[in-house]
């Protein structure tokens, strides 16, 4: 890896921070407190180039705060976030390194699409012809001379992507890009992100729905309440791959108490008389019911899907779960650079 570009010497630490051209995003012990709200707590993860990384969490989990800290829009209360080994503010041409799609309302509505792009082309220091190129790339050439105020949500989303691509960045960060896109637009975006990553570049895309990005991502990072609860591939998502059995019986209450005597504790009683039993096979439940003399009317078994696993991580599990198994321990990340 060539180490060139600008070199900044930190007189306090007597070390040099260099643009390492790694294409990595490294978040290290990041914390952010907004007045009384702790949005992000001691969050660490690494995003590698050549992959699409999904950044998942419920609304309010701290996704946007984290992404904005990476982009230098938010000053962390603790820890740091770096791109290519540097903080965003240390990059000499940040928009040529990182492109970001943050929201669909970041436009002056009375400007035309091309005028909007020419404004930022000048600021980034790329030729004006880039405006036409990125418009073509996102399929907005026909709308180039229309006012952004008349754009649909999907068109604004694509214009935001075009803006992010102006500087031909190595790294792309997208915050909830799926919202507002129709199925066709979503499919197009998936294809785009896959091919972008396939050229060895970095994609970090956030979502609150695993299903929306499950087909696109190579790896996922899940955060809940500002803390990482998982980092790895979809296959490594910590199952609780236990099956769930729904049981309709003659005596739901007695069946539940009998099952719990057999150390089967994960039972939910539904008001309509059904029980949901987790982690036990239907055969086992049948044996217990038979021994207790309870009639089983119906039993259905289901394997948990990814979404359920994701929801379980984000809703029911708290910071105690921060040490979930992950394919790449975060701490290995680029310590050598500094």
């Amino acid at each position, binding site marked *: 890896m060539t180490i060139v570009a600008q070199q900044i010497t930190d007189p306090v*630490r007597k070390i040099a921070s260099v643009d390492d051209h790694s294409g990595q995003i490294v978040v290290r012990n990041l914390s952010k407190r907004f007045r009384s709200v702790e949005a992000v707590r001691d969050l660490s993860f690494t995003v590698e180039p050549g992959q699409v990384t999904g950044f998942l969490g419920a609304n309010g989990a701290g996704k946007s705060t984290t992404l904005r800290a990476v982009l230098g*829009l938010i000053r962390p209360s603790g820890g740091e976030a770096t791109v290519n080994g540097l903080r965003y503010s240390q990059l000499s041409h940040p928009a040529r390194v990182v492109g970001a799609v943050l929201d669909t309302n970041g436009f002056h509505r009375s400007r035309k699409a091309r005028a909007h792009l020419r404004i930022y082309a000048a600021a980034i*220091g790329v030729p004006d012809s880039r405006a036409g190129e990125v418009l073509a790339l996102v399929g907005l050439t026909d709308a180039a001379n229309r006012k952004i105020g008349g754009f649909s949500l999907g068109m604004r989303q694509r214009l935001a992507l075009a803006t992010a691509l102006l500087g031909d960045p190595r790294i792309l960060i997208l915050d909830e890009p799926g919202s507002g896109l129709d199925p066709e637009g979503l499919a197009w975006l998936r294809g785009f992100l896959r091919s972008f990553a396939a050229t060895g570049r970095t994609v970090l895309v956030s979502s609150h729905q695993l299903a929306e990005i499950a087909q696109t991502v190579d790896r996922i990072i899940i955060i809940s309440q500002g803390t990482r609860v998982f980092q790895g591939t979809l296959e490594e998502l910590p199952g609780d791959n236990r099956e769930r059995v729904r049981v309709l019986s003659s005596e739901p209450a007695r069946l539940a108490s009998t099952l719990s005597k057999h150390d089967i504790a994960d039972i939910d009683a539904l008001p309509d008389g059904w029980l949901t039993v987790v982690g036990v096979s239907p055969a086992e439940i049948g044996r217990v019911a038979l021994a207790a003399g309870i009639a089983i009317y119906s039993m259905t078994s289901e394997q948990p899907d990814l979404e359920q696993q994701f929801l379980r991580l984000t809703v029911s599990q708290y910071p105690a779960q921060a040490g979930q198994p992950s394919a790449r321990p975060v701490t290995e990340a680029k310590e050598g650079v500094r």
Partner: protein
Amino acid sequence: MSAAVLDKAQHSTWSAAEMRGLVVSEFRKTLATSAWWALLIPGVVLAVGVLALRAREEYVAFSVASASAWASLFAVLFGAVCASAEYRHNTIATSYLSAANRPKLVAAKMTCAAVVGAIYGVVCAAAAVATVPLTGTAYGNEWPWILAVSAGAAVVFALWAVLGVGLGTLLRSQVGTVVCALLYVLLIEPIIGTVFSISGWDRVSDYLPDRSATLSLHGLTGGEQFGGQFGVATPWWLMLLVAAGYAAVFIVAGIAAAQRRDIA
């Protein structure tokens, strides 16, 4: 701690090409929207109106100075709208992401606003000057002072546009900045001025922002010949420096606020 030092080290590298790009970007922002002419028109109307009211009773150069001083309010508003529009339209994140750092962006905005402000000044002064014959007044031998006042107007308007950028960056709200600027010029400063003059501190009120700008223009009308009549005793260049000081204070405060602020 080390973060601050690093940021400082980085901020010290300002390349001309980079700044040129940012300034071009700001001019494109300005020209792609209507604020620049929408605020120039009332400025011109105000200049013409003030001149029409006063030309018959005063020396021409002095009326042009008064007309320009009133119209300069619209340079403040232009600067303020320039800066606060980024917050109103949520474009501030994109703008910060495109610039290497925030002071550079504010500096580019300031440069653009200063140039547009200077043009405002020349246009408003020219409009006032052009109105003179319509009031049945002759220019007489006042051309040197008329031209001096017009040049001074360019500088004052530029400074006020810069002050507006600082104010807009500080307050962020477009309506808030406009209301603040109007309240100050039309109400607060006259009250402070009155309080000072009642207290016998007339000379202190000369150093208030709006008054300093007005006096610098009045001073350019050939101070000595009006000196006794209008009470312009402080030299125009000193008043201009005072105005520049206010512009500097606001722009530095704006940059400091921009540096600290989270864009969440």
